[in-house]
Every structure is written in C-alpha cells, then in structure tokens.
C-alpha cells in the first residue's frame, strides 16, 4: 500500500507539471524546455523561503510566481526577439541552472524538520482520528503523515484543475487555445498572438513551478538537478492521459493529464520494484515517448497498406 500511496501522491504533485505542459505543448503548440529549469526554480524558491521561516503556503505561492516569470521571459525571447521556439526554451533553461544555484546558495537544500503545506492537513486529520499515528484505509495501515500528504496533494490538484478548466473556457482562455491552433485567424479576430503566447508560457511555467515547490516539500529537499528530464516526463503523462480518456472536451483533457501522470508514476514504481535500474529511468521514459509519438504513424501506414492491398486485390 505504501508504494501505491506514494505513487499516487507523486502523481498528483506532478499533475501540475502535466497540466502546465498541456497549455504550452498542446494548446500553444510550443515545445517548451524551460520546464526543466522552472520546476527546479519552483523547488529552490520554495526551499530557500521555507528554511528562512516563511509560511510554506506563501513560499509555494512565491515559487509559482517565479516560475511564471521565467515562462514570461521565454515567451519574450520568442516573440520580441524572434529567437526560435526551442532555442528560447534552451536559453532560459540554461540560465535558470545558474539562477537556481544562486537562489539556493548551494546545490542542495534539505527540508527536514521544517513546516510544509501538509502541516495544516495533518493537524486536521490528527484531530479527527484522535492522535493515532496510523489509520486504516481499505484494510491497509497507513501512517497519518503519509495520508496527510496524499490528501493535501489531492486537494491542491483538484483546485488547480478546476481553476485551469474555468480559465480555459473563458473568453481569454478561448483566445489562448486558438492561438496555437491558428495564429492567422487569431490576429484577424483582433487578438495579439504574441501576448497570448507570453501569457500561456507564464501560466504553464507557473504550474510547473507549483509542481516543483510541492515536490521539494514532499521529498524533503530541493536539488539543482531535480528538473532534468521533467519535460519528457510531462510529455509521457500527456500522451498516456490522451490514450486513457481522449480529448473530447477541456474537462476530459485535464482529467486525462492528471490520470496520465498518476498512471505513469505507477508504471515507474512497479518497474523499479521489479528491478529496473533507477539510472535507466530517463532512457526508458525517452524510449516510451518515442514509441508513443511514432506508433500512431506506424499504425496509420500499416492500416493503409492493409486496406490499400485489399482495394487493389
């Protein structure tokens, strides 16, 4: 049960990352590698402010804004200075590596014995259960602190998802979604597609930083390396989510992103349990995304060959 609960918890925390990448990758069609840097930025900002005695909620909020700021800069590199899409992200990611070291002052900040956003939930749950250190969930004993983290991650994830869904269905959100789909049409409707791109990347990286801030608090440290490969991780989650539930509507797409992240985390947890070398994790993830990206094309051409063959027969 412990492994499943922790996979769910990490999945819910990383769901913010996937939702953020849904905006950049799927809606703006912007392959934004800033993600690798802004996740760490969120973690380091949250860590440094928390160990300086800030409230963990305030620290998380500041982390979100720092990520949004980084995303805004990537957007400006792309729209104002006409730097290629992928290069804008790479520049920002590289710069953020140094920024993160500066923010933390060193490469790793442990967050042991500090307050985290889980504290509030734990107080409530302890109050309800009357001070037990373990509770029973479907017959499994689970420590109250682990359960509190799970509940906190769940609540934050649901609130974020609802806000995101609401936003994407507003006039502004609709304009944002159209920007990636057809920039020419968007301009003809009087929308500044450059501002929309900047706004979208800000939102996206704000969510990514939220994910980083929560992840640092969950795992008990912020590390300058923790963002590496996170963009591919998010991609894998998006692809799984779409395969699971489809993209019929905004609500379904967002739900898919969350489920996809959890499912992917579960797969990883199981693979690790079965003896997958953790060092191979990123290779496996990259391979998975590669297959997920090319498989639909293969299937299509295979189908064409079969049907085409029938037609000619």
């Amino acid at each position, binding site marked *: 049960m412990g492994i499943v609960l922790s996979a769910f918890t990490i999945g819910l925390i990383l769901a913010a990352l996937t939702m953020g990448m849904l905006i950049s990758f799927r809606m703006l069609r912007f392959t934004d590698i800033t993600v690798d840097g802004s996740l760490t930025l969120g973690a380091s900002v949250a860590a440094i402010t928390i160990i300086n005695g800030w409230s963990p909620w305030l620290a998380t909020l500041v982390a979100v804004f720092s990520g949004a700021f980084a995303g805004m800069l990537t957007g400006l590199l792309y729209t104002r200075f006409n730097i290629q899409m992928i290069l804008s992200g790479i520049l920002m990611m590289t710069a953020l590596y140094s920024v993160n070291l500066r923010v933390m002052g060193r490469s790793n900040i442990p967050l042991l014995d500090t307050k985290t956003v889980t504290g509030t939930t734990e107080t409530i749950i302890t109050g309800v259960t009357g001070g037990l250190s373990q509770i029973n969930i479907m017959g499994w004993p689970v420590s109250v602190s682990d359960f509190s983290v799970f509940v906190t991650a769940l609540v934050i994830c649901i609130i974020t998802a609802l806000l995101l869904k609401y936003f994407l269905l507003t006039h502004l959100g*609709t304009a944002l979604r159209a920007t990636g789909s057809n920039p020419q*049409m968007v301009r003809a409707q009087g929308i*500044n597609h450059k501002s929309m791109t900047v706004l979208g990347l800000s939102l996206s990286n704000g969510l990514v930083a939220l994910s980083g801030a929560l992840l640092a608090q969950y795992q008990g440290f912020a590390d300058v390396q923790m963002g590496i490969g996170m963009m591919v991780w998010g991609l894998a989650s998006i692809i799984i989510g779409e395969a699971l539930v489809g993209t019929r509507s905004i609500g379904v797409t967002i739900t898919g992103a969350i489920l996809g992240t959890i499912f992917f985390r579960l797969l990883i947890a199981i693979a690790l349990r079965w003896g997958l070398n953790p060092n191979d994790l990123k290779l496996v993830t990259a391979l998975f995304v590669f297959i997920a990206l090319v498989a639909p094309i293969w299937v299509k051409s295979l189908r064409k060959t079969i049907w085409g063959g029938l037609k000619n027969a």
Partner: protein
Amino acid sequence: MLNVNNLYKTFAPGTVNEVKALIDVSLHIEEGCFTAVIGTNGSGKSTLLNAIAGSFKPDHGRINLFEHNITNWPEYKRASLIGRVFQNPFAGTAAGMTISENIALAMRRGKRRPLTAAITSRIRDEIAERVKTLKMGLEDRLDNPIGTLSGGQRQALTLLMASWLRPQLLLLDEHTAALDPKTAAKVSEITKEIITREKLTAMMVTHSMQQAVDLSDRIIMMHRGRIVEDLRDEMKARVRISDLMQTFERVQKLDLFDQSVAEILEQQFV
C-alpha cells in the same frame, strides 16, 4: 472612408526574386461601396488587400480608415475595424475548437476578452439564431469541432464571423476560389446577402469576372502592381464580362509591346 495614398511595396528587394507588388497605388473607397478587385496572377490585388489588413508594412505610402491613420497599426489592432475572409477555407477558423467557440472568438473581435465564461446559454442561443440564417443546418452542430465541416461550410461560418460585429471594412480575399462551383455560388449568395443587409463597405479580390460583375458596385482592375482600370457608377452598370476581357487583353498586349519595343531598340542602338 478608406483612403490609400501612394502605396509602394517591393518583396525581396535587391535579389533576383525582387517583385514590385505595389507601385504608387492610390485608392479612395466610399462608405457602403462593394468594390471588386480583379487582375492577373501576380498583379498585386491580394497584396493590396493584405496591405490594408496589415499583414505587412508598406515601403511607402499611407492608409487611412475613417479618421484613423492605420499605416503603422499591427494586424491584430486593425482587426477592430476590419473583418476578413481568406482564400483558404481553413485559414479563418481554429480547426480543433467547436463552432460555438470559434464564433465566440469573433463576437469579441477587437474588444477586451474578460475572465468570464465564453459560452453561456444566452450566448449559445444568440449563436444558434444567427447560424440558422446560413440555412446549412449548422445550428444543430454547434458543439462539433469546426474541423469536421466542409470547406464551404467553414467559409460560410468565417463570413458570418467576420461580419458578426459590424466591421467598418470587410476584406474578402478570393474567398470562393477554393470551393467547388456549387458551393462557391452558395457562398457568393451569402456574401451578397450579408453585405446588403448590413450595408457593409467591402473589398473583394476575385478571379471570377462573373462574380465581380454580379456582386459589386465598383470594379478595379490591377496589373503589375498598378491600378489600370477603375469602373464605377454608370460605367460599372454597363460593363460586361467581354468588356473586362478586352481590357485584360489590351493591358497584356501593352506589356508585350513594351517588351518587344525594348528588344528592338536594344538591337538597333546598343
């Protein structure tokens, strides 16, 4: 109303691909006038329309729309005054989004886009009511992705979107050229209907002289980046397709004449 003064545009200047797309083009269009722009391929008619819409900045010249000097306005800002329909039926709508979402975008063309729901039941009813006027049965498919519709249906919707908020100027860039003849006729008919009903000022680039003669109040013919013929009022009322064809031939012969004369002169004097 629309004033174009001494407009110049050269693409890829100083290269072998240099194209003088607009040469000293001046044009005045009155309010409520439906102008057709015809001309050979590469005559600069679409370039003129794009210059007015703001797709690029002219090298020289000025464009005024009502009291605004819009020469330096970016494309998206001009959209508050100008509605557009493109030649490509897929260019005017966002394929992955629903019909109602696309129209909701057009309902706030050039206006602030607030953080309130884009599709409410009130907005949806309003959309259904106006989509019904197209008589295409699309009012029952408002929640379908617009990418599932045919080119003609999408073009009709783009036309509806461009005129949803009454534009000061409607620009139609060969908007029926990519459609099959039957659909093209239907879209032409809708165009006429909307322009007449809303008393719109419009400019339409077209390859079809029939369309130019049937729909417009004024015909401008362009050739090699210049306006070579301007038929209005009685002249326009009397003009037939054969007349336009003759003008075309005359203009093209003049071109040939220029070239051959240049060659002869070159042979004799160089």
